[in-house]
């Protein structure tokens, strides 16, 4: 099986994902974690969502997926090919999750279940959405592992997560996200837990895969340098609000806000320059 560009759904025009006025509050706590976020993602394009921890970027991704923690109230609009996702029943969201919209998480070790082989976990979404036998699923997993360039995939498919290195584990996570050929991939700090050389490899892999599959991507990171190569446009967030947004070129060339300038200047030690709000719990 070869993962190729998924056919464009019939009769769907305009933006693949459009987020308008997205606002998330926790009424019980009286806190507003995201305030009026707007952006669109087109097929094959990448949006970088940048901000320090607690800025609400992970909440944004969870809101799109319909996976916000209990007690969260959400307003605004998230539409996928024109279909309103907010307020969608969970069963409808489940059909999209992992199939049309897939996620890659930050910490691959804890994000993989230690009790199941990587092959099983990679193929799980495929079996859920497409069905098929165990043997087929295994084939799908091996193919996906090859695609993310995990050597010796035929043998490694039966290994458990702790038997992989950090970089290989993140490749497993990526394979897991790609297995149903999604339109949209949400990558939440996919390279943060990795060391620098591995980080570069993973970034290259992700943009290669995006080129070949034509999926749109929401790339969440605290590190502007990381998105500089991959993002077409960038949204900079601070304390739940948009500070600045525009094309990657514009942001890097003429940053408007002090915050963005600080982010640009201080990629390694961000914490020293900006006063950080309390990191939000519950997003991890």
């Amino acid at each position, binding site marked *: 099986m070869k993962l190729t560009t998924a056919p464009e759904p019939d009769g769907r025009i305009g933006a693949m994902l459009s987020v308008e006025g997205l606002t998330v509050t926790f009424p019980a706590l009286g806190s507003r974690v995201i305030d009026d976020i707007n952006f669109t993602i087109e097929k094959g394009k990448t949006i970088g969502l940048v901000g320090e921890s607690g800025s609400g970027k992970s909440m944004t991704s969870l809101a799109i997926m319909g996976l916000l923690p209990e007690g969260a109230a959400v307003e605004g609009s998230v539409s996928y090919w024109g279909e309103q996702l907010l307020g969608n029943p969970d069963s409808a969201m489940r059909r*999209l999750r992992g199939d049309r919209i897939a996620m890659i998480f930050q910490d691959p070790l*804890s994000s993989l279940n230690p009790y199941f082989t990587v092959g099983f976990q990679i193929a799980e979404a495929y079996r859920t959405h497409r069905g098929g036998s165990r043997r087929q699923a295994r084939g799908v997993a091996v193919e996906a592992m090859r695609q993310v360039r995990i050597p010796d995939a035929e043998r490694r498919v039966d290994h458990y997560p*702790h038997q992989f290195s950090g970089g290989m584990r993140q490749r497993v*996570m990526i394979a897991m996200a790609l297995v149903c050929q999604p339109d949209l991939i949400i990558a939440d700090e996919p390279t943060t837990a990795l060391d620098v050389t591995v980080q570069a490899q993973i970034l290259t892999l992700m943009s290669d895969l995006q080129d070949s599959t034509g999926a749109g991507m929401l790339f969440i990171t605290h590190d502007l340098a990381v998105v500089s190569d991959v993002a077409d446009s960038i949204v900079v967030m601070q304390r739940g609000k948009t500070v600045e947004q525009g094309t990657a070129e514009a942001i890097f060339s003429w940053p408007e806000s002090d915050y963005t300038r600080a982010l640009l200047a201080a990629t390694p030690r961000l914490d020293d320059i900006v006063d950080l709000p309390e990191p939000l719990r519950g997003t991890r």
Partner: protein
Amino acid sequence: MTLLPYLSKRFLASVITLLAVIFLTFAVFFWLTPDPAANICGQTCTPDQIHAIREQLGLNQPFLKQFWAFLAGIFAGRAYGAGATAVQCSAPCIGFSFQSGTNVLTTIISRLPVTISLAAGAAVLWLLVGISGGMISAVKKGTWWDRGAMMVSLGGISLPNYFVALVLQYLLVVKLKLLPFPTLVPFSENPSGWFKAYLMPWIVLALMYAATYARLIRANMLDTMGENFMRTARAKGLAPAPILFRHALRPSLTPVVSLFGVEFATLLGGALITETVFGLSGVGKLAYDAIQSNDQPVIMGVTLVAAFAVIIANLLVDLAYSVLDPRVRVASR
């Protein structure tokens, strides 16, 4: 497979523990029993008769010599006394009851079917109730159901099983006449009679374990539900059932396996109280009767068999763990 060194190390440790248990048990009975000869002989014995028994059975020998004879009996069998009156006890010989004139191990083995029926039935019951109760509580954490179930389980942990046995018997047998007084019939002859006879003992025995397991499963499930991989499972679009039964239950159950193995093995050494209260003639009842009649070889034999079961179970649990938890499996390789 390089699991072998690990296994042989664990096996060696078990053998050492077993030997230590044998030594300790023997020592306790040796030093704490006032006069085994008088015990064997009965109340109407003359000092001369007691002396003769002591001579004949080697009870006047020094401690280590007697222990050696006992240990040798386990591995090679032994004879009590000499000449025409000698009693043969073939290996593994863990003692001979002069009170009843029987080989202790043979007696214990003849009592095992009852004990196994009791323990196995109760185990099925407590696993069913404990696991499902704990799961429901974890899923409905903080609700009235959860609080109620956890309070009930604390109650279940606190209820002495002999008290529950009396209450159940009084209510179900005497007052409501729903069940007959438990009388054992073989399963092959009368399955429903067999089931009715064991029903109350199963409930009584399962109660405390069900309560403990429900709490344990709940705690494990809540821990697991907070794990990042649960979020991954949801992000894959899995339905609630596979998320719960596959991703949450599997990690929550694994630690329970070790507890279950050891507790079940402990029960094979006799559910002393439950068997006694319901008059089930299993190993536990055997031990109880032996305590009442001060039949030391039998008490000692049951202690040894129980210890043996627990030690074997500990070994098996380690093995099971290395199969069930992939991380352990690979680490031991």
